[in-house]
C-alpha cells in the first residue's frame, strides 16, 4: 500500500535533483589543476619506453603529483599526496631513464607510480622528513632487471641513506649518518654513491662534507670535506648538486655572487670562476641546469638573473681528469628568460625561452640550432604582463638541426603554457590551485541599468522624463546592430548552440579569487575556460602566505580584506582595476539607528561588542568551560532571503519558523577528550538557543557545519559505542517558534521584537543520519528570493565529489518509527531512515573528480530557480543548480522542433478539415431525412 507512495515521493524528488545527461558537461565547468609546477620536479618523460610519446610529469607546490598530456594539456592522472605536514617541505619527483615508473617523495613518504596510469607500485616510509631522493642509474647486476633502484636520504635524529629496490620498495641497504652533520643531498655517479652533508663550523659557517658509499653494500669507502672557507653562510647559495650525470658536481657561490665555485664530486679540487656581470648589474639569482642522465655529455649551464636581464654560461667537464672549463656564453637579453635542458642520446640541448622568442643551442657549441618567434598576440607572455619563471623542454632532432621544441613554461601570472616551436598550444590556469578565498561579483552591466532606473525613480518627474527619453534615444542607436544580430540569435536560441553574450538570466557572474601567493584572479562563469584577468595584488616575501578574504562589496566591485593593509581594498570585478574607497557606494542596507552588535573571535574567545563613542564595549562573552576550545563559528549568511515565515502543513495549517538574522553555530571541543559541543547562538544577546554534545568523536576527521534560514546541519565522525554505530554522521536541526500549528508562541502579539529585551526560545527538532563518508565542508544553495527549496551542499573529500542533498531528505520532521500520515505525505515527508546513502545522481560533479576542494560558495542568479555554485581549493569547479527544477525557464528537455511540428501539423489539419466541415454543414442544412 505504502510502497507506491514512496515510489511517488521518490519520483517527485528525483527529477529536481539529478544531473541531466545532456547538461552534464555543458552547464558545469571544471579545471582539473595540479598546482604551480616546480622546476626541479617537472620533466618530460616517456611512460612507455618503447613508444615515442611522452607526458609531462610534475609534483607541484600544492603537493599534487600528476601527468599532463603535452598535446592538449589534459590531465592523464594525478594524486593529491598526503601533505598534512609543513607545506614548505621539500618534495621530489624522479624518473629513471627508460623506466615505466616515476618516484615521488614528499614529507616522509616515497611512492613509486606507474607512469602511464598513476597506479601505485610501492610505498616506503622513511623514519623522518625526506631530504633527497634519486634514482640510481647504475646497473650492477643486483638490481631487478627493468626497475632501477631508488636512493633516499632522510633527516631527523638519525639521518640515513637508504637504497630501495626499484620493483618492490624494499630497503636493500641502509647507511646511518652518525657524524651529527646535516644531511643535504644524495648523488650518484656510475660507480659510487655520494652523500653530501653540511658541517657547521664553530664560527657558524658551513662546510661541505662528502661521504662516498659503495652502491652495492652501502658501506662507507671514503670521506672528505671541501675547503669552502668562510663563504658559505647558509645552504641557500649552494646552486646544485648534480645527480646521475656522468660526472656529478657541487656548485656554490659566495653570498655576493662574485665567484662561482665548482667541485666535481669525488675529486677534492675546487675550480673558481669569477662571475662576469657583462657590464650590467650583479646577478640576484644563479641557477644551474644539467642533464639528469649518466649517458649524457658532462656539460652544464649556469644561468644568471639580474634585476632586468638574463645571461648564461655553458661549462664542460672532462670526465677523466675532472677538469671544468667554460665553453661559451649565451648573450645577455633584457627581460626575463628561462632555460631548460633536454637530452637526445648523449647530446645535450639548452632551450631558452624569452618573452618573444624560443632558441635552442647544443651544449657543444653556441650556434643556434633552432629559433622561433612566440606568435601569440593574446598570451600574457608576449604582452609583457607576465614573464617566464621556469620551463622544461623536449627537443626532436633531425640530423644536425633541431626540428621541433616543445616547452612547458610556467609564467609569473601562474599560467602553465606549452609552446610548440613558439606557438602556444594550451595554457593551464594553475594559479587557481592556490585559491584561498573567492567571491561572486554581480556583473556591472546589469547594475548599470538598475542604477539608471533608480535615478529615474528618485528624481523629479520632469528630469526623470528627460532622462528616460535620452536613455531611449541611446537605446535606439543600438537597434540596427540588434536587428542584424537577431537572425543569428534566433538560430543560436533555436539550435541551443552557444550563447549570444547577453546575460539575461544572470548566469555569467564573475568570480574573483585570491590566491595564497598574492594574486587576484577573475573567472567569468559564462566563459570559464579562460581567465578574465589576473593581477598581483600584493608583493609577498618568499614563503609568506597571503591571509585574505574576498567579498562582494557592490555590483561589479569586490572588497579584499587582508592582513597586510589595515583598510580593505576595492577592485572592479570586470577589469581588475583598483578602485578608490570613495567611489564605492555604501552598501550598508541596515539603517544606522539601532544599536549594532558585532561578534568576534578573539584569542580563542567569542565576544559580542557594541560600538559607541567610547569605543567597543563588551556586551557578552561566550563562557567556555575549562579546557573547552572553539573549533569553528558559522554565522547565518548575510544574504539569506526567506520567502515564507512558516511551513504550510498538509492540512493547510502553518508551522512558524524561528527566523532570526542573528544566528550563529558554534562548535567547541574539549582538550584531551574526544567530545564536541554544538551551540546555536543569538549573536545579539549571546543567548544559547540550542546546544548538544557528542562524545567519542574523531577530532582528526573534519567537522563541517552550516546554518541557513531556520535550520542548521553539522557532521562528524564517531567511534562506536554500545548504542551508537561507528562511522560518519550528519545532524540536521530546525528551529520553530512553536511546534503547534497556527501558533506563534510567545511572539504572537508582538509586532517588534528585540533580541536584547525578550528571551524567546525556539523549539528545535533534530534528526541524525548515518552517512557513508565524512563531509569536509558544507554550504547551502542561495536563490534570489528564497522561494526555491534549498539544497545542502556537502564536499566529500574521499570521493573527490560535491553532493547536493535535497532539503526534503534531511527534514527533521520526517516521522520516526511510523508511516507518515496523509497530511505528512501531502507535505512530502516520508518515513525516517537512519541511513542516507548519497545517490550518485546527487553528485554535482558527476564523473568529474574534484580534488582538494576547501570551500564552496553559492550565489543567486537573476532567475529564482537557479543558484550558482563555485568550489575552490585545488580544483575549480562551478555549476548551476535548480533545486526545485527549472520552473522559470525552458530546459533542454523542451523540444522546440516538436513544438513547431505540432503547430505545423495543426495548421495543416485545419486547412484540410475546414472544407470538409463546411461541406458537411451545408449538407446538413439542405438534406432532410
Amino acid at each position, binding site marked *: 500500500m505504502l510502497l507506491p507512495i514512496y515510489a511517488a515521493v521518490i519520483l517527485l524528488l528525483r527529477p529536481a535533483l539529478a544531473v541531466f545527461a545532456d547538461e552534464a558537461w555543458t552547464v558545469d565547468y571544471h579545471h582539473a589543476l595540479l598546482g604551480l609546477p616546480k622546476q626541479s620536479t617537472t620533466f618530460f618523460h616517456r611512460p612507455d619506453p618503447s613508444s615515442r610519446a611522452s607526458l609531462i610529469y610534475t609534483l607541484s607546490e600544492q603537493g599534487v603529483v600528476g601527468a599532463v598530456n603535452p598535446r592538449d594539456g589534459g590531465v592523464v*592522472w594525478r594524486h593529491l599526496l*598526503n601533505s598534512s605536514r609543513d607545506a614548505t617541505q621539500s618534495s621530489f619527483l624522479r624518473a629513471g631513464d627508460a623506466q615505466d615508473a616515476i618516484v615521488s617523495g614528499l614529507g616522509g613518504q616515497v611512492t613509486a607510480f606507474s607512469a602511464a596510469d598513476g597506479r601505485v607500485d610501492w610505498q616506503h616510509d622513511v623514519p623522518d622528513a625526506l631530504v633527497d631522493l634519486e634514482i640510481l642509474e647504475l646497473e650492477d647486476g643486483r638490481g631487478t632487471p627493468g626497475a632501477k633502484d631508488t636512493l633516499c636520504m632522510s633527516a631527523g635524529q638519525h639521518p640515513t641513506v637508504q637504497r630501495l629496490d626499484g620493483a618492490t620498495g624494499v630497503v636493500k641497504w641502509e647507511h646511518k649518518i652518525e657524524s651529527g652533520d646535516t644531511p643535504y643531498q644524495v648523488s650518484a655517479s656510475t660507480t659510487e654513491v655520494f652523500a653530501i652533508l653540511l658541517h657547521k663550523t664553530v664560527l657558524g659557517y658551513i662546510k661541505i662534507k662528502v661521504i662516498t658509499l659503495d652502491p652495492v653494500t652501502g658501506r662507507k669507502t671514503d670521506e672528505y670535506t671541501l675547503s669552502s672557507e668562510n663563504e658559505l653562510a647558509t645552504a641557500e647559495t649552494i646552486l646544485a648538486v648534480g645527480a646521475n650525470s656522468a660526472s656529478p658536481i657541487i656548485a656554490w657561490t659566495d653570498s655576493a655572487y662574485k665567484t662561482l665555485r665548482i667541485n666535481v664530486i669525488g675529486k677534492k679540487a675546487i675550480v673558481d670562476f669569477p662571475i662576469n656581470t657583462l657590464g650590467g648589474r650583479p646577478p640576484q639569482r644563479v641557477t644551474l641546469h644539467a642533464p639528469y642522465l649518466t649517458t649524457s655529455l658532462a656539460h652544464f649551464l649556469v644561468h644568471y638573473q639580474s634585476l632586468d636581464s638574463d645571461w648564461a654560461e655553458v661549462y664542460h667537464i672532462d670526465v677523466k681528469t675532472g677538469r671544468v672549463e667554460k665553453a661559451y656564453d649565451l648573450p645577455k637579453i633584457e627581460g626575463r628568460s628561462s632555460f631548460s635542458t633536454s637530452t637526445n642520446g648523449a647530446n645535450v640541448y639548452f632551450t631558452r625561452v624569452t618573452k618573444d622568442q624560443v632558441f635552442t643551442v647544443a651544449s657543444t657549441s653556441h650556434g643556434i640550432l633552432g629559433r622561433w618567434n612566440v606568435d601569440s598576440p593574446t598570451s600574457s607572455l608576449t604582452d609583457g604582463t607576465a614573464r617566464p619563471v621556469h620551463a622544461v623542454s623536449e627537443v626532436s632532432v633531425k640530423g644536425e638541426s633541431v626540428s621541433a621544441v616543445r616547452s612547458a613554461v610556467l609564467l609569473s601570472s601562474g599560467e602553465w603554457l606549452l609552446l610548440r616551436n613558439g606557438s602556444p598550444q594550451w595554457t593551464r590556469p594553475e594559479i587557481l590551485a592556490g585559491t584561498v578565498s573567492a567571491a561572486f561579483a554581480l556583473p556591472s552591466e546589469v547594475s548599470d541599468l538598475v542604477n539608471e532606473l533608480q535615478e529615474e525613480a528618485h528624481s523629479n518627474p520632469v528630469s526623470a522624463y528627460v532622462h528616460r527619453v535620452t536613455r531611449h534615444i541611446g537605446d535606439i542607436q543600438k537597434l540596427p546592430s540588434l536587428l542584424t544580430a537577431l537572425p543569428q540569435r534566433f538560430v543560436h536560441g533555436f539550435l541551443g548552440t552557444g550563447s549570444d553574450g547577453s546575460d539575461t538570466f544572470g548566469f555569467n557572474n564573475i568570480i574573483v579569487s585570491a590566491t595564497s601567493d598574492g594574486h587576484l584572479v577573475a573567472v567569468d562563469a559564462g566563459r570559464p575556460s579562460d581567465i578574465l584577468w589576473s593581477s598581483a595584488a600584493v608583493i609577498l616575501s618568499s614563503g609568506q602566505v597571503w591571509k585574505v578574504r574576498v567579498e562582494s562589496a557592490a555590483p561589479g566591485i569586490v572588497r579584499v580584506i587582508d592582513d597586510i593593509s589595515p583598510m580593505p581594498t576595492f577592485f572592479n570585478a570586470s577589469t581588475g582595476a583598483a578602485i578608490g574607497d570613495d567611489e564605492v557606494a555604501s552598501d550598508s542596507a541596515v539603517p544606522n539607528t539601532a544599536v549594532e552588535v558585532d561578534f568576534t573571535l578573539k584569542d580563542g574567545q567569542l565576544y559580542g561588542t557594541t560600538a559607541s563613542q567610547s569605543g567597543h564595549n563588551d556586551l557578552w562573552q561566550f563562557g567556555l568551560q575549562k579546557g573547552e576550545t572553539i573549533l569553528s563559528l558559522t554565522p547565518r549568511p548575510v544574504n539569506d532571503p526567506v520567502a515564507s515565515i512558516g511551513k504550510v502543513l498538509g492540512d493547510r495549517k502553518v508551522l512558524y519558523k524561528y527566523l532570526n538574522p542573528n544566528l550563529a553555530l558554534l562548535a567547541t571541543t574539549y582538550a584531551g577528550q574526544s567530545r564536541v559541543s554544538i551551540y546555536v547562538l543569538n549573536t545579539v544577546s549571546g543567548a544559547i538557543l540550542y546546544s548538544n554534545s557528542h562524545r567519542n568523536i574523531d577530532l582528526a576527521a573534519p567537522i563541517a557545519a552550516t546554518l541557513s534560514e531556520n535550520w542548521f546541519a553539522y557532521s562528524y*565522525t564517531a567511534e562506536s559505542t554500545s548504542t*551508537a*554505530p*561507528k562511522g560518519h554522521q550528519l545532524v540536521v536541526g530546525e528551529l520553530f517558534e512553536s511546534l503547534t500549528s497556527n501558533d506563534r508562541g510567545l511572539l504572537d502579539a508582538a509586532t517588534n521584537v528585540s533580541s536584547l529585551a525578550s528571551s524567546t526560545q525556539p523549539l528545535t527538532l533534530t534528526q541524525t543520519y548515518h552517512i557513508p563518508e565524512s563531509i569536509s565542508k558544507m554550504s547551502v544553495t542561495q536563490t534570489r528570493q528564497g522561494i526555491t527549496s534549498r539544497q545542502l551542499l556537502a564536499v566529500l573529500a*574521499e570521493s573527490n565529489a560535491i553532493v547536493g542533498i535535497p532539503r526534503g531528505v534531511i527534514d527533521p520532521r520526517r516521522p520516526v518509527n511510523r508511516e507518515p500520515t496523509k497530511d505528512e505525505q501531502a507535505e512530502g515527508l516520508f518515513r525516517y531512515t537512519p*541511513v542516507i546513502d548519497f545517490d*550518485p545522481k546527487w553528485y554535482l560533479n558527476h564523473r568529474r573528480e574534484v580534488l582538494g576542494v576547501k570551500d564552496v560558495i553559492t550565489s543567486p542568479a537573476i532567475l529564482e530557480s537557479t543558484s550558482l555554485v563555485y568550489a575552490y581549493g585545488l580544483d575549480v569547479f562551478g555549476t548551476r543548480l535548480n533545486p526545485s527544477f527549472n520552473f522559470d525557464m525552458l530546459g533542454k528537455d523542451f523540444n522546440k522542433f516538436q513544438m513547431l511540428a505540432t503547430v505545423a501539423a495543426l495548421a495543416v489539419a485545419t486547412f484540410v478539415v475546414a472544407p470538409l466541415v463546411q461541406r458537411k454543414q451545408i449538407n446538413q442544412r439542405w438534406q432532410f431525412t
Partner: protein
Amino acid sequence: MRLSFLATVLTAAQAISAAKLTISIPPSPPVLPNPATLPSSTHAVLLGSPGIKHTAPLRRDNTFVFPSLAEDSYLLTIYSRDHAFAPYRVDITKAAAASAQQDVNVWWTYRGNEWSNKGPLLGSGQDDLRVEIRPTAMKDFYQQRGGFNLVGFLKSPMILMGLVSVVMIFGMPYLMENSEALLDLDPETKKEFEEMQKSGPTAQASSAVDSIQNFDLAGFLSGKSASSSGAATPSAAGGGAKKR
C-alpha cells in the same frame, strides 16, 4: 650483505608486531569485468579509533595493501569514481594472551546498525590476510530526460480517453448503421429503439443543455411555460448550428 640481511630481519620484526591486510579486486562481471580499468584515484580507507586512519591507494595489481595495522576495530571503505563498494569491518586482535600473533577478521557491516551487528565473515587469518572484495554496483550519475515517446504518449490515460471518445463520436453512427444492416432489425424494433434514444437520458440531457444554452430570459420572465420553451428548441438548435 650483512646489512641487507639485517634489514630483512627488521622488516620481519615489523611484520610480527603489526598485521598486514591485502584487499584485491577480482574481475567481477557484469559490474566490473576488468579491474584494470579502475581509475588510479580509487583508494581504500581504514578508520580505526579516533585519530587513526590508514589510506591505501590502488596498486598496479588491483590490490590495496595495509602493511602494518595495530590492534583495533576498523571500518573499511573503498572509494572509487565509478563503482560503489559495501562497507566492511576489519578487526585486528591478539591471537592469544601470550602470543605475538594477531588475528585478522573481515566482516560485512551495515550502516545505521550498531557496530556489534556483524554480517557474514569475509575472511580471517593470522598476521597476513588477503581478501577479495567486489564492487556492488556501478554508479549512475545521470538522469535521462523523458524524451518524446510515441508509445508512451499513446499509453497515457488522457490520450486513451480522448481516443475512445473520438472513436465513439465518429465510429458510433457508422457502427449503428452497419449493425442495423447486419442484424437486419425489423422496422418496429428500430422505431422503438429510435424512440428510446430520443427520450433516453442522453437526449434528455442534451435538451436540458440546449434549454440552458438557449435560455429565453424574456420568455421566462413573461411567464411562458417550460413546455413552450421546449417547443422552441429545434429552431434554437438550428440557429446554433448556423453559428457554428
